């Protein structure tokens, strides 16, 4: 059995244990809503408030977070001040690949995404806020990288099917 690229429940568990405020975005958010496209990491938008960065740093220390490089990972001093100094962190953790994106393309960050987000239970009561599929599409449309554009037809089709199920098509 190949090793899992990330363990969403373990990462969420560590974040919740330390009281981190965050919204799950990207591929995992889309999958939770029915997207058929796999992803190899979990993307998260944390609240950038100082107290939350302290909590986030504690969770990352517990997860043994390191900077993720193409062929290795590199330790770095994980604390709130360091985390505040960068808008994107690409990390390798004991629970797999984790990206922190404080202001995803086309959004104003945590508060903006929190409005449309909903709670998902990832098992054993480990709930987390997940960005709406409409917001995931907004981010990918704005980021406009080739890999984002390639995913849009499947994401739009998923949204259309969700609307049909809601009786709103």
């Amino acid at each position: 059995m190949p090793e899992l690229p990330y363990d969403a429940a373990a990462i969420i568990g560590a974040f919740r244990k330390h009281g981190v405020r965050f919204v799950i975005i990207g591929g995992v958010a889309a999958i939770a809503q029915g997207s058929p496209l796999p992803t190899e990491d979990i993307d998260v938008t944390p609240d950038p408030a100082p107290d939350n960065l302290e909590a986030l740093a504690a969770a990352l220390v517990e997860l043994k977070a390191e900077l993720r490089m193409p062929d290795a990972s590199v330790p770095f001093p994980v604390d709130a001040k360091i985390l505040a100094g960068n808008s994107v962190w690409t990390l390798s953790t004991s629970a797999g690949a984790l990206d922190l994106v404080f202001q995803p393309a086309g959004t104003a960050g945590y508060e903006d995404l929190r409005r449309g987000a909903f709670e998902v239970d990832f098992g054993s009561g480990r709930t987390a806020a997940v960005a709406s599929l409409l917001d995931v599409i907004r981010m990918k449309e704005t980021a406009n990288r080739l890999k984002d554009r390639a995913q849009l037809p499947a994401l739009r089709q998923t949204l259309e099917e969700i609307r049909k199920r809601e009786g709103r098509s």
Partner: protein
Amino acid sequence: MISADLLKEARLRAGLTQAELARRVKRSQSQIARWERGDVKPSLETLRELIRACGLELGFELANYDDSYLPLIHQQFRLSPAERVRHMQHVAAQMIDLRRRARASLA
């Protein structure tokens, strides 16, 4: 809901409130809300005007219809959100493993 979702996406990308967009297009905020809820569908021309007011352009192209994702989406819908994520973690792991094997066989 396609027009409703497109309109909301464009407005949010522009960072506008419904009232701000309404002022730009000289309509009422409640009309914008009705369009975004999907209660009323705007014409294609009106949708284009609304999206332009957000500083974006609604592109048009005709492509071959492709519903190949539908069975996979419906398969995902049969699972709970947590099960979907767990299932896709395993799919991603298999993909990574296949890539690793392919690289090894080429080396």
